């Protein structure tokens, strides 16, 4: 089954955003540091996709590449990015600027650094409206006030005149969300939106994002290292490891029957509430992968408890040999699925 067919089955209504075989690297010529190898994902209109992985696995880089906002030295080395069928990588910078904000919007991780400390919230928020969408200042101010109300920031008028450092962490994050949705994007990418917040605020923000995307009909991509965050918010989840997708499934399925050893390990490392008798937190043994020194074969093999010799030499393909394509996994062993349920395939074991 080809990748294209897989993604089409996963998103039957036609994806609003689709990444195919995306690769991201830094540097040129001999010294290219590959941080994303071959990532394919898609998200449908109104759907919420979670992207989960350790820091450094390439999840943020993938999304920055889609927006063509990679930092200095970074390039897309392979693949395509389709927004409603248009390949974004082929657009001119001018056309791409129109896509940013209105087509795809980004909510960054740390709201304190993501807001310009020298500009008021109102000025930053209104900037694209006044200068690129042709609104008058009065109209922009009105819209900003609406947006702040929408994200649950009280006293909008005063807040617009405040500077970022005068707001609390939670309010800053809300302001950032308001800025992201201001141009009614089709896809909202939230990159670790809760990492810098305390636990109570975390759930508030998550619920806000969820509510907004349902109300405004946006697709949502939620990037996080914490599997607990995607539960209850996303429809599907893709797990990333060492710059590759290793498992994609519906959220419920991923939690109940994970198939990739890495996913299982991630689940095991989450504390379960109210379950004191259960196992203690089990961190994943070994070190995270180093993009400077990629290992041959499956990138997870040094830390995998189900490893077989094949894993050390051949990189597994992302495929689903069981359920008819809705739960692709990148693993030779596929240890948690009973052997009988596996479709016969040509590969010797």
């Amino acid at each position: 089954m080809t990748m294209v067919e897989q993604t089409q089955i996963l998103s039957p209504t036609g994806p609003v955003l689709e990444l195919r075989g995306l690769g991201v690297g830094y540097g040129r010529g001999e010294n290219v540091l590959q941080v994303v190898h071959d990532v394919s994902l898609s998200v449908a209109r109104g759907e919420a996709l979670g992207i989960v992985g350790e820091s450094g696995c390439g999840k943020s880089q993938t999304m920055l590449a889609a927006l063509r906002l990679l930092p200095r030295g970074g390039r897309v080395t392979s693949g395509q990015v389709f927004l409603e069928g248009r390949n974004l990588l082929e657009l001119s910078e001018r056309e791409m600027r129109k896509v940013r904000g209105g087509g795809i919007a980004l909510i960054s991780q740390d709201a304190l650094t993501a807001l310009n400390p020298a500009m008021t919230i109102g000025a930053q928020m209104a900037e694209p409206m006044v200068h690129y969408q042709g609104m008058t200042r009065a109209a922009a101010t009105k819209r900003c006030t609406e947006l702040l109300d929408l994200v649950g920031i009280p006293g909008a008028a005063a807040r617009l005149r405040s500077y970022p450092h005068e707001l609390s962490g939670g309010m800053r994050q809300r302001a950032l969300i308001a800025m992201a949705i201001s141009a009614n994007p089709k896809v909202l990418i939230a990159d670790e939106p809760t990492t810098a917040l305390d636990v109570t605020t975390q759930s508030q923000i998550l619920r806000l994002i969820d509510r907004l995307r349902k109300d405004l009909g946006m697709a949502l991509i939620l990037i996080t290292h914490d599997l607990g965050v995607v539960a209850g918010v996303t429809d599907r989840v893709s797990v990333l490891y060492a710059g590759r997708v290793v498992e994609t499934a519906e959220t419920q399925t991923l939690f109940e029957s994970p198939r990739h050893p890495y996913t299982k390990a991630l689940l095991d490392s989450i504390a379960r509430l109210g379950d004191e008798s259960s196992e203690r937190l089990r961190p994943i043994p070994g070190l995270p992968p180093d993009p400077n020194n990629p290992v041959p074969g499956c990138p997870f093999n040094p830390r995998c408890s189900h490893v077989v010799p094949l894993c050390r030499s051949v990189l597994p393909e992302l495929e689903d040999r069981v359920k008819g394509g809705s739960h692709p996994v990148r693993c030779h062993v596929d240890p948690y699925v009973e052997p009988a349920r596996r479709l016969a395939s040509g590969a010797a074991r």
Partner: protein
Amino acid sequence: MLSFIIHRALQIIPVIFGVTLATFLLAQIIPGDPADVLLGSMATEEAREQLRESLGLNEPVYVQYAIYLQKLVQGDLGQSFTFAQPVSQVILERLSNTALLAIAAIILASVIGVAAGTWAALKPGSARDQGLSVVVLFFNSMPSFWLGLVLILIFGLHLRLLPVGGMQSVTGGGGVLSLMAHMVLPTITLAAWSLAVIARMTRSSILDVINSDYIRTARSRGVGEARIVLRHALPNAMPAVITVIGMQMGFLLSGAVLTETVFSWPGIGLAMYQAISTRDIPLIQGGILVIAVAFVLINFAVDVLYAYFNPKISVA
């Protein structure tokens, strides 16, 4: 904000005292007998003793310092024997000339320096960036007086485009245009070093800032590159640059000694050069004191301005 100003003001008072002490001590380290210096070696012992008494030179050092301070407060900086005038008068008459040159130079250095530094920072490693590095290297390696001489040579003597010295035309009616023509070369000479420092600082400051998250936020919302630089990057890069500009003001004031000498510009600097030739210690002391205190006050003003424009600092 007010408390910040008061706080900073209290901090600089000891420094200003220290400056007066240091300036006072300069006279103390002069080898030999001051009376000899002032009266010449032919004077009688009587005359010398009289002079010593009148100058309070027989008192212990701290008493002399107290007398010095007392006179300072009254505006008495001693007598310049080169100009046969009180030092304070010599300085006051020439202060505006030096200030004019210094202000013109700092404006030139800041405007071009910031522009060049920003321009280079937008494409780091490119030809324009390396070009700037070369120019900065040269400007930082040239003594200002040599640059001044070369400019005089080229523009004054060979091309005959600009006057070679002085503040006004010796012939002719003077006026603003003449003044400006006379200002061109000295201003460029004085500004060169600072221009290089400011350009380099701006470049590195912009580079620090351009990779910030908030720049990425603005870009992710479709804000164009020109606005990103002017409205987001530059304002956040400026605080570091402004501090440097404040420091350079002091450098300009002291560098005026060299530039004014080369161009015979009638400012404090030229007076100090003349004072050096004649070993007119009071005038040298007076000039150093005035410039150093001015530097401290300028930095104070810069700090206040910085805090005014940067809301985070004044709150802290």
